[in-house]
């Protein structure tokens, strides 16, 4: 099926998530969509799959006919099927029930014919799925396979896949790619959304790159990797003046640490962080850096290895022990994890202090709040509830909550969504902490921020962790390749 997107715009309030996107994808093509987190990829895909509608004036043309897609169910009527990164299926139900749910028909679905169709489709692509097993016993890769044949059975002729190679095994990936190529040969149109350069280069006939909501370029195979990286991350990164750390004693030491969750395994990481040092964690979201920083905070228990903080063994200790030892963690989800909606700034500052007696000294609390509000330049009053503050001010409030003295500050996306003034301000405050002897580990998807503010950095890719890289000696180009999964062979195989 031919797809044409014309003048697609999408505003969310003030944010212009898609700016005038025009894209044509001929039938039988595997189209790659590349871009950083927040570049507008998922907005565009949501428009195409009916979750949201584009602003007035945009057009979606399928096989020459303009269509309006009202809902995801409507999309599949038009032949557009989407495979979500987290499969939208029903884990406690059986595979066959998942397969037939959503297909219209009589009151009692005929399971025999459904099972026959299921078997035929599964065999066609060499998927070995047991229709009677429960979905929650399946791997992510198998759930993907189930979704693919389900969408095909519903008559999809356009298949959108969102980051499909995250969390699946190498053999499942090979099978997935073979399937997609086969489908394209049969005239299906495949849209492959990914940040993994290698996957896109390997699979896609053509690729479009989005950056900051705009379509910045289209390339056909064969690709020039450096060109893709340049389009994804922008070529001109102006680095501010770097302030190298005066590295001191070892603060945090990871020996042979291994971590696990349902999706990823990180194996045998060694890392030593010195006082005053800033370590940046780079990588696309969900590559393992979130699990890693939570392990630094004592929130995730390593399945193997040893953690030491200032020479004290903290392996397997609770988060609160870490906190008492001088580790503070500022999560990315400010209102979900970092702050307490419904409480005001004074309440927060009082909570963060060690209690003095039983009763709160209101006047002292007020004074404390006023001081912090002033020194952290928060736009709000001591009585402002945190949810009434803007994002930048919430972030400043979180920083103002850090205890003193501190050994280690852990931050997830410390400046995401903030204006440049806030960014500079916040890093000023953080560097101040470093001069006082704290070390910082932070996650960011902004390469510029990582390069500018870290002394060393680690790159994460699908649970693999790079050796620490000297930030002064690397480039956007090199980092972009590593983040996209290229060039890992040269890194040495210590962590593979």
């Amino acid at each position, binding site marked *: 099926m031919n797809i044409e997107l014309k003048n697609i715009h999408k505003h969310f309030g003030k944010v212009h998530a898609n700016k005038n996107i025009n894209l044509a994808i001929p039938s039988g093509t595997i189209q790659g969509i590349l871009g950083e987190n927040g570049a507008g990829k998922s907005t565009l895909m949501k428009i195409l799959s009916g979750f949201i509608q584009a602003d007035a004036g945009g057009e979606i043309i399928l096989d020459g006919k303009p269509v309006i897609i009202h809902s995801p169910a409507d999309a599949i009527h038009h032949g557009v099927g989407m495979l979500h990164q987290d499969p939208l299926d029903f884990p406690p139900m059986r595979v066959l029930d998942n397969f037939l749910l959503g297909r219209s028909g009589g009151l009692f679905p005929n399971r025999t014919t459904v099972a026959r169709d299921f078997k035929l489709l599964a065999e066609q692509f060499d998927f070995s799925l047991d229709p009677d097993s429960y979905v929650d016993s399946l791997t992510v890769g198998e759930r993907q396979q189930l979704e693919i044949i389900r969408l095909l059975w519903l008559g999809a002729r356009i298949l959108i896949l969102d980051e499909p190679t995250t969390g699946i095994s190498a053999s499942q990936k090979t099978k997935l790619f073979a399937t997609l190529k086969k489908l394209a040969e049969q005239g299906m149109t495949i849209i492959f959304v990914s940040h993994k350069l290698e996957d896109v280069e390997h699979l896609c006939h053509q690729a479009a790159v989005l950056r900051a909501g705009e379509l910045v370029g289209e390339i056909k195979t064969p690709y020039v990797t450096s060109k893709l990286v340049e389009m994804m991350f922008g070529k001109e990164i102006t680095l501010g003046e770097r302030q190298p750390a005066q590295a001191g004693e070892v603060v945090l030491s990871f020996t042979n640490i291994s971590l696990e969750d349902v999706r990823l395994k990180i194996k045998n990481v060694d890392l030593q962080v010195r006082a005053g040092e800033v370590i940046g964690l780079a990588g696309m979201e969900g590559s393992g850096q979130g699990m890693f920083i939570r392990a630094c905070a004592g929130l995730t228990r390593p399945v193997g290895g040893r953690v030491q903080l200032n020479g004290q063994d903290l392996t397997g200790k609770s*988060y*609160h022990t870490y*906190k008492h030892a001088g580790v503070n*963690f500022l*999560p990315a989800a400010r209102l*979900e*994890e*970092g*702050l*307490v*909606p*419904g*409480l005001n700034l004074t*309440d927060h500052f*009082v*909570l*963060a202090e060690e*209690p003095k007696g*039983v*009763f*709160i000294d*209101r006047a002292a609390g007020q004074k404390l709040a006023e001081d912090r509000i002033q020194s952290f330049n928060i736009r709000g009053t001591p009585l402002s509830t945190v949810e009434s503050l803007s994002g930048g001010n919430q972030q400043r409030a979180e920083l103002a*909550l850090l205890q003193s003295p501190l050994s280690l500050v852990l931050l997830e996306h410390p400046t995401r969504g903030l204006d440049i003034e806030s960014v500079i301000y916040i890093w000023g405050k953080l560097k101040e902490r470093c001069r006082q002897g704290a070390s910082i580990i932070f996650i960011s998807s902004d390469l510029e921020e990582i390069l500018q503010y870290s002394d060393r950095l680690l790159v994460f890719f699908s649970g693999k962790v790079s050796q620490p890289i000297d930030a002064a000696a690397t480039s956007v180009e090199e980092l972009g390749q590593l983040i996209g999964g290229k060039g890992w062979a040269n890194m040495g195989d210590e962590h593979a």
Partner: protein
Amino acid sequence: MLKGRGGGFLFQLIALLLAFGFVSLILLSVNASPVDAYKNMFTGSFGSMRKFAEVLVAFVPLLLVTAGLLVTFSSGLWNIGVEGQVVLGAIATTWVFRYFLESSLHPAVIITLAILGGMIGGAIWASFTGLLKVFGGVNEIFGGLGLNFVSTALTIYLIFGPWKRPGVASMSGTVPFPAEFSLSQLAELRISPWALGIALVGIVIVYFILQGTYFGLRLKAVGKNFRAAYLLGIPTWQYSMYSFLICGALAGAAGAMQVAAVYHRLIPSISSGYGYLGLMVAMLINYKAVFAIPVALFFAALNIGSIQLPILMKLDSSLSGVLQGVLVLFVLLAEGARQKFSKKA
């Protein structure tokens, strides 16, 4: 305007009017005059000193329960088991009295011990719900409900079993305690100033805990955002347990008052439903301690004021419960409507 405090007040006023309007329609549907009904309820509760004293008798346990529930609601817990905690408070108080029946201790000491016993009994019973929640993953609503039934069974077992009256056991309860075991009452009136004092002290303490202490602030943080409270360094599950214990102790004190100041024995329905009614009061005042006294007094007045209705108007006294429930329901609906409107505005 809809967003501000004024808007909230407007919606509450509308809710109040709608609630009274709705109940008036119910009254009209059974051919009763709403005006007469409300008037009778008013005179039935405030018409004489004796009647007002009765209102205060109901006000005491209701206020204590409400005070306790403000603590559990602050920490985000739905302590529906409060009813059973009142019952266990009453049972524990009765046990202490029975234990000291033959004792030569001064009655004041015994009464003090009995009330403390009631508080401990309520707290222990509440801790079961808490332990089931924290370590067993059983939602406090279901754990609490189950324990409520068990507490009722326990009461009946005691009244008909080990604590039965000599001769024949009956639903009228255990043998009444000697007069010196009751909290002293005002002349001619059933209200004990001591009981009233204890209830007021209870709500004042809760008010200060929630408004002015580190403990209260931490409780609120746990209730509003469990995850963030944990990350801020608060031992979250311990705080959940503390709030169950405090609420249980206050509910237990309510049960103790029912035994020591009202019935002077253990009866099958010793809690009189004040646990559930306290949940309604807490919801109606939107979990703010400052309004607890007037609203609990109002609810107690409705309960007492409706007692005369069967005689005066041939209406069932459950009208008070209907009015209380409809009021809370409309206030909840109005709050939902306000949020919907202010989101759209």
